């Protein structure tokens, strides 16, 4: 009985078990034996409906195409984890591409026929006549007598705040025409800005900066901001930035009320300030013609640039290129476009008429880039708009004009594009005028970021979320992508003061060092894998370090196609014979060759197009591509 039970499947002593296992292994490897295939289980119900149904593409189990194999990592747990994340990333990228197809790419434009017709000849009256009633209503003239006006839009482009030099301040929803508040402050007003949304405005008055709420009630007097000329609000950091006659740059956190930083620029009164929306760096234009970039974390500017001879009147950063281009205008009647990645000389510069007249009086050239990269330059009595690719191409002189509009009321004191619409609002001595600039605004807004049609509850919710997601001012840097990137490797001293070599005990070394010492550090990159595979696996230590250099210096050897004595007729006969045989492998090969030919044809086409001068035509993907599987 005991023997019988023990025979059932009791655990065996170790040595016997091991032998048995080995025996089975041997059997598995026996030649000629194949693994038994699992019989495919047919589900009758599934089979009955599968004939007439199709899984929707979103539910089809989808493997992303490009996933790094990570085969060089020995640790199974780590490898599978990395592969999983890589797969997820690749899948997300593919889905992103898929979602791109659904974008409407809606955009305003002026199309001209022939070379003789110019877009800049099109007047506002013509534009108004040719568009619908609702759009035509956006072309407006406001006659106001509060002095020369400064304006500011909210981030969603729905609300407008205006401030006249003589103290007339108003905020309103410009699309419906509802007035939120109107104030007669009876003192000089120099600048105005919205805070997080339309519910608060900050006004730079004669002496201090004041904050008013939507109904025009004074909420705060920021008495530390004295004689401020320009205001900016950094929406993601909740910072109100001001600079004024004394040349102090001040950052105030509007969510806590604390002054974060106060920098003395030592460059006198400042009349030009702008923020870069993409990295929250403040650009200041000074009286001596320099432009300085400022962050609240550095007392000295990370970049100082001598841009103009004489005071700078206006600055603007291009939002469409992620803050890559900067346009400056000075009292010397020049407009310059700078590439922020390379400060050695401007990309393009030109002279404007009537821009001079003393920057300190608030009369000078005004600049603004639109969301889509159109540059508006207001000087003298006209506003000129330039279109993107030519603005920052390295040519001399003025770029071709896209649109212009004369205004009889000098001086022009502010230029603002309205986000998500094709409207440009100009502030001048006799009020405001908004003109229509087709193609200026971004067509697709993201309702998670800025929604022109935001309801009241959504605004409240976004305010709370904005506060929760408030970025700390310490994180403002020139490169906003440094967050989440790898820290630079720490340099460890190898010699002490006496010149003696420092050897830390193995146990005290950091983990990577320890792995390096024991030869287990895996520092191969994913990209190197292929090279190593070509070079042969058995390299170690020093050789492994040299191998990439060798491979890069030596050109890959060309493999010659050598035909060995086969007659042409014989070859033809053989190929004919082969053509008649149809089996899955030949079909597959033929398809592959077809695909290769297709890609080659496309490449040739692209190369030809490039040679012709224009950019290679990119076939626009259609939204229907999502269903092609």
């Amino acid at each position: 009985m005991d023997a019988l039970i023990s025979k059932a499947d009791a655990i065996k002593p170790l040595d016997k078990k091991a032998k048995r296992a080995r025996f089975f292994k041997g059997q598995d490897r026996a030649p000629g034996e194949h693994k038994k295939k699992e019989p495919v289980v047919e589900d009758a119900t599934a089979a009955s409906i599968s004939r007439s149904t199709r899984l929707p593409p979103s539910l089809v189990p989808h493997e992303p195409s490009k996933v790094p194999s990570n085969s060089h990592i020995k640790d199974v747990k780590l490898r599978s984890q990395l592969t999983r994340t890589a797969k997820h990333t690749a899948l997300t990228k593919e889905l992103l591409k898929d979602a791109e197809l659904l974008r409407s790419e809606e955009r305003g434009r002026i199309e001209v026929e022939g070379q003789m017709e110019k877009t800049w000849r099109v007047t506002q009256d013509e534009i108004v006549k040719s568009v619908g009633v609702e759009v035509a209503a956006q072309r407006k003239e406001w006659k106001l007598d509060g002095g020369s006006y400064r304006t500011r839009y909210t981030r969603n482009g729905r609300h407008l705040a205006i401030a006249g030099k003589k103290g007339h301040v108003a905020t309103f929803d410009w699309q419906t025409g509802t007035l939120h508040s109107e104030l007669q402050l009876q003192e000089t007003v120099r600048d105005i800005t919205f805070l997080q949304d339309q519910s608060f405005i900050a006004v730079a008055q004669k002496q201090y900066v004041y904050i008013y709420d939507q109904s025009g009630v004074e909420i705060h007097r920021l008495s530390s901001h004295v004689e401020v000329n320009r205001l900016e609000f950094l929406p993601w950091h909740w910072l109100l930035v001001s600079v004024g006659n004394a040349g102090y740059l001040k950052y105030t956190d509007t969510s806590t009320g604390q002054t974060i930083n106060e920098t003395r620029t030592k460059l006198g009164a400042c009349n030009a300030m702008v923020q870069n929306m993409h990295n929250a760096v403040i650009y200041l234009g000074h009286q001596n013609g320099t432009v300085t970039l400022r962050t609240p974390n550095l007392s000295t500017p990370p970049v100082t640039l001598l841009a103009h001879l004489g005071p700078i009147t206006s600055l603007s950063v291009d939002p469409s290129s992620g803050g890559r281009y900067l346009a400056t205008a000075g009292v010397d009647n020049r407009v310059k476009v700078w590439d922020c990645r390379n400060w050695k000389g401007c990309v393009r510069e030109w002279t404007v008429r009537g821009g001079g007249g003393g920057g300190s009086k608030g009369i000078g050239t005004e600049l603004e880039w639109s969301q889509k990269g159109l540059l508006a330059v207001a000087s003298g009595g006209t506003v000129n708009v330039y279109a993107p690719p030519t603005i920052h191409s390295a040519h001399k002189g003025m770029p071709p004009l896209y649109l212009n509009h004369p205004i009889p009321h000098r001086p022009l004191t502010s230029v603002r594009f309205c986000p998500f619409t094709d409207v440009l609002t100009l502030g001048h001595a006799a009020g405001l005028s908004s003109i229509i600039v087709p193609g200026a605004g971004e067509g697709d807004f993201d309702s998670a970021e800025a929604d022109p049609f935001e309801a009241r509850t959504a605004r409240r919710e976004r305010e709370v979320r904005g506060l929760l997601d408030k970025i700390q001012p310490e994180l403002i840097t020139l490169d906003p992508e440094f967050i989440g990137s790898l820290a630079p490797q720490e340099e460890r001293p190898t010699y002490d003061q006496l010149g003696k070599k420092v050897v830390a005990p193995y146990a005290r070394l950091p983990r990577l060092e320890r792995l390096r010492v024991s030869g287990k550090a895996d520092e191969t990159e994913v990209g190197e894998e292929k090279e190593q595979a070509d070079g042969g696996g058995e390299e170690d230590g020093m050789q492994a370090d040299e191998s990439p250099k060798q491979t890069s210096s030596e050109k890959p050897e060309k493999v010659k196609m050598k035909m060995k004595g086969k007659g042409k007729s014989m070859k033809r006969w053989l190929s004919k014979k082969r053509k008649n045989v149809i089996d899955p492998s030949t079909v597959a090969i033929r398809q592959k060759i077809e695909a290769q030919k297709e890609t080659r044809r496309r490449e040739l086409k692209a190369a030809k197009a490039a040679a012709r001068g224009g950019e290679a035509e990119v076939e626009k993907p259609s939204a229907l591509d999502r269903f092609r599987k």
Partner: protein
Amino acid sequence: KISVLHHAPSAHIPARSGDPNPVSRNLDPLMHPFARARERTRALNAAKIERMFAKPFIGSLEGHIDGVYTMARKRDELGTIASGSGDGEIIVHDISNRKHKVRFPSAHKQTVSGLAFSENDRLLSCGVDKTVKLWDTRTTSDGNGDLEDMDARTERTPLSVYAGKMAFNSIDRHRTDPLFATASNIVHIWDETKSTPISNLTFPTSNETITCVRFNLSESSILASAGTDRTLTLYDIRTGKAERRVVLQMRANHLSWCPTLPTSILLASEDHNLYTFDIRSFSIPTQIYKDHVAAVMSCDWSPTGTEFVSGGWDRTVRIWKEGVGRGPAVYHAKRMQRVFSTMYTGDAAFILSGSDDGNVRIWKARASEKLGVVDGREKASKQYRDKLRERWKFDPEVGKVERHRHLPKAVHKAAELKRTMLDARQVKEDRRRKHTRAGESKPKAERKKAVIVEQT
């Protein structure tokens, strides 16, 4: 010829009042400035929120006068557990109402050393008074009656008493058959209907006291025991023999079989560590779990098999993830003493710990989990926060919040001291190695140090 951008309000404003606002998306990265920085802020907030809501203590089950040294859960009932204390008292608790179901005030003359539920609401208990007793835990009116009254009326007597020759240290019941195993100087297998053991299991050369014995949960005729000779022994009751044993560096105080992975076994060791072994290869533990700063007295797998709990001499309860050897969740309470028994409840949502201060404490298994009904949006946002924490855990600030655990001062100091000592030991070994002939002494992997010898 001229077209101007125009958003039709009808497309962006809800058609009827009460409808949600239509959402439009633009995934262009230029439209989302500071996406990374904002996500990091969100991750930091998520980590902080997680720590803020980490309030794991739910309540304690009082009633014992002496320390609680053993606990058992009933397999088919979520709310019922039994606990035995040092003065020989056994209490069957109803944890959902935090009431006593049944009390056996002097079940044993000395410490109750082991408890196991049997079939039909019966409870097996063993004590160091050399007896095993079988109790009926049924209440008069199916748990609704007044128990205090009934206790006052009658002192319950055991259904049967099994006498042994040595003090019993542990007991476990077979999963299906009416068999149970006890641990004294050897392992006895008993039939519930017979008063003497039906078989004695022992490793041929062993001469030790067995501290813990447990049946495998799926291969139910296999059982494992831990003994004072620093051994872990496997037995099969079908062959009636000890099959294999392994001698470790330090003795194991407690062991537990994984409920989902039948080959995996967990040891709570005297050397402050826990070990999981695959019983197919005893030569090397699959993972060492290091964080306790004193001997680990008890351990128990979660019914899901992905986590386990341990309680130790350092007055803490720690919750580990299977395969992650560091950084467990640490639970401690101001008045909690040495933890001698820990246990998951059957739904893996709660943890029970019995300590020297005579309380059985109820903890949440996931410290910051919200109890009760969680609606869909809340669940989704929790999942998003968890993902963010996972993704940003390498950020120094997020990681700091994630890793930081407040510990009692004594535990913190002990951990510091332990770290210093271990570091010093390692450095010393390094130096020694440096000054011996090259290759003479090689560093040994930590996992390979655990096992001294494997015997069959």
